[in-house]
């Protein structure tokens, strides 16, 4: 008996925006051309707005620098980080599409074990369009992948899964280590291709890396605020972590799934560990308190939209984390500013549970 033929993955070219933060140049796009050319790009230029970022020919894009951000958001622009890739979340806010894929400008096309180029975007789309399974762990990983299924013992009532809100990809070559680990293992490279996509169970937190990330903007967009980092802030390199913890707590509350694993990209640039250490320093200590905080967050039942959840979260941040450092009071306020700005720019109304 023949197996049903595999349906091709839809391109979603009119439903997906690619958001890229950059401060240097976008040469890396040349390598991605076969996979990205059909999509609309939103480029968020960090740093000096008077510098011109050259975009390779043939790409359809909109570009925002700091002047644009200030002009569009006015006083609310204070919630968008400066001199940190956290500024990319401005791109999420101005997008009008259902899905977002975000990638760093030092990430290139990787090869799978058969030496074939990996179409990371296609895999993210597959991940986002198939359900997630956060309520019970499937030992054969993603049961919706071709060649896999739910294992014996997996409750049938849970096999429909839930909507996937986030697809978190991984990195070959330079792994996403923190500064202390980089210092101890400067030459370690990730060469292990783990051929799996899996749903992170409900109630479990994870470190979300923004280098190779896709999400359903209509579902979880408002929670993808990357915080206050970089210039004038006491912390850096925790933007994506912060967003990831907020996103996971809200997804768990609203019943959506977060997947991690494939696709891999090739991460080419190892940032300076000593510079990283300075940026991460406070984060390393603060995360000891942040994790128990997020693990203990209980959102009230009447928080039925992402915005409501997020605003509630900001109150808890102010109350419980404020005592650690005044930074968290500022952060909680900018979380509210972010939601206000989001709602202004996206008057359509929030996605309901």
């Amino acid at each position, binding site marked *: *008996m023949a*197996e049903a033929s595999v349906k091709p993955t839809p391109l979603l070219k009119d439903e997906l925006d690619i958001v890229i933060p950059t401060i240097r140049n976008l040469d890396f796009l040349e390598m991605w051309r076969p996979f990205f050319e059909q999509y609309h790009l939103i480029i968020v230029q960090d740093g000096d707005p008077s510098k011109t970022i050259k975009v390779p020919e043939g790409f359809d894009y909109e570009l925002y620098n700091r002047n644009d951000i200030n002009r569009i958001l006015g006083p609310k622009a204070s919630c968008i980080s400066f001199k940190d890739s956290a500024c990319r979340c401005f791109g999420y806010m101005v997008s009008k599409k259902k899905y977002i894929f975000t990638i760093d400008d030092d990430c290139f096309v990787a090869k799978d074990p058969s030496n074939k180029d990996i179409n990371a975007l296609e895999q993210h789309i597959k991940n986002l369009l198939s359900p997630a399974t956060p*309520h*019970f*762990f*499937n*030992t*054969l*990983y993603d049961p919706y992948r071709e*060649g*896999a*299924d*739910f*294992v*014996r*013992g*997996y*409750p*049938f*009532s*849970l096999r429909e899964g839930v909507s996937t809100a986030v697809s*978190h990809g991984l990195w070959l070559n330079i*792994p*996403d*280590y*923190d500064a*202390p*680990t980089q210092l*101890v*293992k400067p030459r*370690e*490279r*990730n*060469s*292990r*291709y*783990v*051929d799996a996509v*899996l749903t*992170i*169970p409900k*109630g*479990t*937190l*994870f*470190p979300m*890396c923004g280098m190779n990330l896709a999400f359903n903007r209509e579902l979880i967009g408002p929670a993808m605020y990357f915080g206050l980092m970089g210039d004038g802030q006491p912390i850096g390199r*925790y933007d*994506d*972590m912060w967003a990831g913890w907020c996103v996971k707590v809200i997804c768990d509350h609203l019943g959506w799934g977060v997947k*991690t694993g494939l696709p891999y990209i090739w991460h080419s640039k190892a940032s300076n560990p000593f510079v990283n250490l300075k940026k*991460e*320093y406070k984060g*390393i*200590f603060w*995360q*000891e*308190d942040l*994790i128990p905080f997020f693990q203990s967050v209980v959102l009230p039942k009447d928080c039925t939209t992402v915005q409501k959840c997020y605003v509630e979260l900001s109150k808890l941040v102010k109350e419980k984390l404020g005592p*650690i450092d005044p930074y968290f009071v500022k952060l909680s306020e900018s979380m509210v500013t972010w939601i206000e700005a989001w709602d202004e720019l996206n008057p359509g109304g929030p996605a309901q549970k």
Partner: protein
Amino acid sequence: MTTPPSLLSLTIHSAIHNLSRISDLSFLPDHVVLDLFLETLRAGKLNERVLKLFVATGKDEVLSLIEAFNIQQIVTPVLPTILKMSQLNIMDSEVDIVVGALHSDLTSFMNEWKPIFSQYHLIIVKDPELKEDLIIPDGFDLDVYSQQDIDRIVGASNSIKFSGYSCRYFGYLMSRKKYIISIDDDCVPAKDDKGLLVEFVAQHISNLSTPATPFFFNTLYDPFRKGADFVRGYPFSLRSGVACSLSCGLWLNLADYDAPTQALKPSLRNTRYVDAVLTIPAGAMLPVSGINIAFDREVVGPALCPALRLAGEGKFRWETMEDIWCGLCVKVTCDHLKLGVKSGLPYVWRNERGSAVESLKKEWEGVKLMEEVVPFFQTLRLPEAAVTAEACFLEIAKAVKEKLGRSNQMFARAADAMVEWVEIWKNAGSGPLPVDN
């Protein structure tokens, strides 16, 4: 709020974690070498190579400490940090391999596993309902148990039946080793994605003897594997992990699907080798398949019990749920005791056997059962006072009787079996092995 750790202590912590990669310490300032040495001792990570490193620094304080503690240069390695396959320190004599024999002729099974099993002690338990004598080739160090032994040691039991796949639990009971690796008799060694023979025993042992990380998910999977580590954003206080008590392996070819799934997709075979081991997060439930597992008998032995029997239970995995039930109990126990459960490597190759459609005609009950059972386990909380696997198991049995037993006799029977099992384990699970008549 606790005082945050100093940068120095974080660095020393990181260095301890990566001792196997450090080849020179002489450039470090004296007080750092001393601190590092003391931490190494505390962490139990001193071995011959590491000792040589410290001696090579020539620092007086460290040398005098070595002398004062009477640390000998030629020492048996003590708890190496990262257990690479070639450096496995777990002695072969700490491992028992348990096989439940549902087939009488084990010749090809044993011969296929010989390269891997021949250095270990094996326990083979014959399914009491198997009529024919077992045929086992020579060349193994093994003990074989059958119905007579079960009768002699356990006696007549109302609730525990050791027939079919449940016979292997008798083997767990009889073992006196720290680690048990258990495999179905229709599985053979697998090859990995590079065509190399999977180091089945070594991988399970590695899983059980390196820490698990259930409190926060590491996106690069097992951080203790070579070439991997904790990623950015992983809290440092959680990086030492907890002990791993259960290692769940996977299957190539015939995966452990249920009958409806396999019947619907008769040609579905698992060909994907996923090169990962990961810790199942605390609070997350999973279906533990009894086909390919390993566990720390000393710690969780009593919590693995053949308690749930389906009315139509048969000789194919499609017709059982005993391992799934067992796995839920063990996971709740491990979560409560802050122990880890890992899943992933090693793979075995599972041979074709049976007909999913035939099994489907026979057995639907198990499939429906899970619907009730999962919400119960997901919300089950054990009292603080339960600090051993036995205590946890008895608490679970109590909850099963009260909550699930009310609606279905099968669960009430399972609860009774669980309580009886703890007694059996107390009597026969430790001490000298009962002598043969």
